[in-house]
């Protein structure tokens, strides 16, 4: 579907389940460098195996894609079914978000695009979504909007609120010891102890690296979903369980680093994924068995030590560890960054 706006841009809505990657996506991926979860093939798998499938909205000008939005089509009913193959009528809203990137927006732009250019492009994408989803669309909800993007999304008739901040560590360190030295004495000692214990444990098999092919995707998906199920579901959480085929394709990517902890019987005890990025590395999924089921204490902190060590070694400027557990993350040197939610009701979409 193509909508030609009055300005310089075209907005296209692509359903990754059945459509190929948008024109110019590979060039856009090279210049904008979105995180791994934006890959259309991953969106295709995710779309088929979720209740709220993502649509990929791209806005083009003569130089290619200006901005890309990931919009989850959500409905108020929560029946235990996957998303229908064809769009149905009825009330719905779209969440512009990347469900597996906590604290980051569902908007990626070409470097250098900002101000009015970005504003026009986003409004064009909104109009395209409204046309695609029809009369049942109640509005758009932008999640994880940072302070840099906020001015282009707010406007008359739009509602915006500050939500839980995300935690970001600015990598100004030359070594892990320098990072540890910046922390409180008790946290520093605790991190060293946990890391030493994990390294010395003969019954613990720790493996990490990019493009892992030795991972049992079903076990990983099971551990992630069980871990999520142990905590209360946040209000308004529209995410579906993670499916094994998605994990299988995801961990094989070269920009996805997966750290796994197994016992000597091969049972997966904990895992952490790290999305490599030239600007913001994302410390993404964390899941662990509880101690009463055989899990180990302290692996959460060991994973932080390993993640920070990797980022320092590879010169990445920032690490984001998403929202939640801010007190713990602050004690690890992370600083809170403002995150906003913006609602664009249907009457003001595209305006």
């Amino acid at each position: 579907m193509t909508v030609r706006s009055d300005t310089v841009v075209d907005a296209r809505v692509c359903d990754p389940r059945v459509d190929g990657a948008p024109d110019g996506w590979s060039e856009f991926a090279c210049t904008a460098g979105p995180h791994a979860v934006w890959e259309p093939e991953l969106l295709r798998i995710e779309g088929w195996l979720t209740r709220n499938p993502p649509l990929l909205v791209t806005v083009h000008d003569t130089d290619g894609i200006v901005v890309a939005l990931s919009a989850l089509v959500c409905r108020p009913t929560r029946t235990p079914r996957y998303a229908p193959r064809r769009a149905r009528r009825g009330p719905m809203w779209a969440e512009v978000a990347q469900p597996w990137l906590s604290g980051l927006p569902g908007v990626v732009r070409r470097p250098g695009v900002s101000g009015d250019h970005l504003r026009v492009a986003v409004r064009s994408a909104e109009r395209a979504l409204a046309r695609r989803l029809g009369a049942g669309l109640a509005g758009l909800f932008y999640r994880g909007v940072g302070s840099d993007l906020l001015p282009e999304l707010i406007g008359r008739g739009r509602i915006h609120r500050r939500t839980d901040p995300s935690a970001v560590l600015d990598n100004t360190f030359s070594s892990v010891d320098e990072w540890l030295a910046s922390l409180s004495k008790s946290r520093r000692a605790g991190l060293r102890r946990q890391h030493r214990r994990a390294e010395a444990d003969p019954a613990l098999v720790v493996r990490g690296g990019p493009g892992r092919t030795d991972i049992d995707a079903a076990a990983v998906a099971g551990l992630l979903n069980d871990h999520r199920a142990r905590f209360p579901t946040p209000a308004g959480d529209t995410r579906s369980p993670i499916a094994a085929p998605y994990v299988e394709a995801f961990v094989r990517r070269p920009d996805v680093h997966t750290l796994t902890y197994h016992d000597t019987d091969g049972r997966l005890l904990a895992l952490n994924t790290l999305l490599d990025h030239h600007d913001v590395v994302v410390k993404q999924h964390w899941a662990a068995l509880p101690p009463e089921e055989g899990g180990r204490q302290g692996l959460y902190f060991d994973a932080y030590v390993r993640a920070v060590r990797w980022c320092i070694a590879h010169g990445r400027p920032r690490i984001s560890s998403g929202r939640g557990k801010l007190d713990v993350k602050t004690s690890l040197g992370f600083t809170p960054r403002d995150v906003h939610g913006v609602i664009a009701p249907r009457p003001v979409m595209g305006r």
Partner: protein
Amino acid sequence: MWNSLASRLWRAAYLRAVSSAFATVPLYRETWALHGRTDPVLVPDRTGSNGGALAADTVQRRLVDTAPLAGGSTEPDPARGLAGLLTHATQRRSHRLVVVVDAAVTRPPTGLPSGSRGCVLHPDAATPLDDGPVLREIVDTLRRGERVLAVGEDKNLDALSAALRSAEPPTELPPPDRVPHHRIDSLTGGPFGLLHDPLLGYLGVLRDCGRWHVDCRHVYVRETTGGLAFTVLDRTSPRLVDVLVGGGVPGEVQACPRHGSPVIET
């Protein structure tokens, strides 16, 4: 008469099962959406393999994913469908006791006519030396002059007959009626027989016309490039749709010229 209306209704029931499985059951959603299938076409521009049918061992391995998202059992019932086929499988209308002699069947058949009871006997227990409760119950029922029907593989039924002949105290017991069940790759000519699969249960029956009739009220079968694919229509969990039983046996689905209902030829 297997007229076009009955055939269309049968096909419609199958399409409903496929549609429901695609919308709610992880195994089929993953397999069909990510790898595509050909019939019915659910995912545009994707063709899939074996017409979207799945090998029985694949389904067996992933039974946990055959329950719908709303939840349900993941335990197959190997005795499913037996009760509905017994009227065509034997010449008697009912039996006091129906015994399934098969290692794969662990629970008695359900849905038997009133007055009939079902039980299972492990083949290892069908020996003259065994004095288990099932064997005692069979002997007692036969001694009372009531009818017993034994269902299982030929060798197991032979073992049961031998065990009954040597039952203590020695008396002249009438032999139980017997209906052998067969896997799809070893169908024989009868005179009696049932088509059985340990995962899907009882799928068809050998009728007096000498053809293998599909249990079309509860089972759908279609031809695929991988072989005959069976669908259990009336069981929601575990959902068993387009399963290539016996590793995929080539065959044809036709209408029986005598009864008009669907039959398979392998």
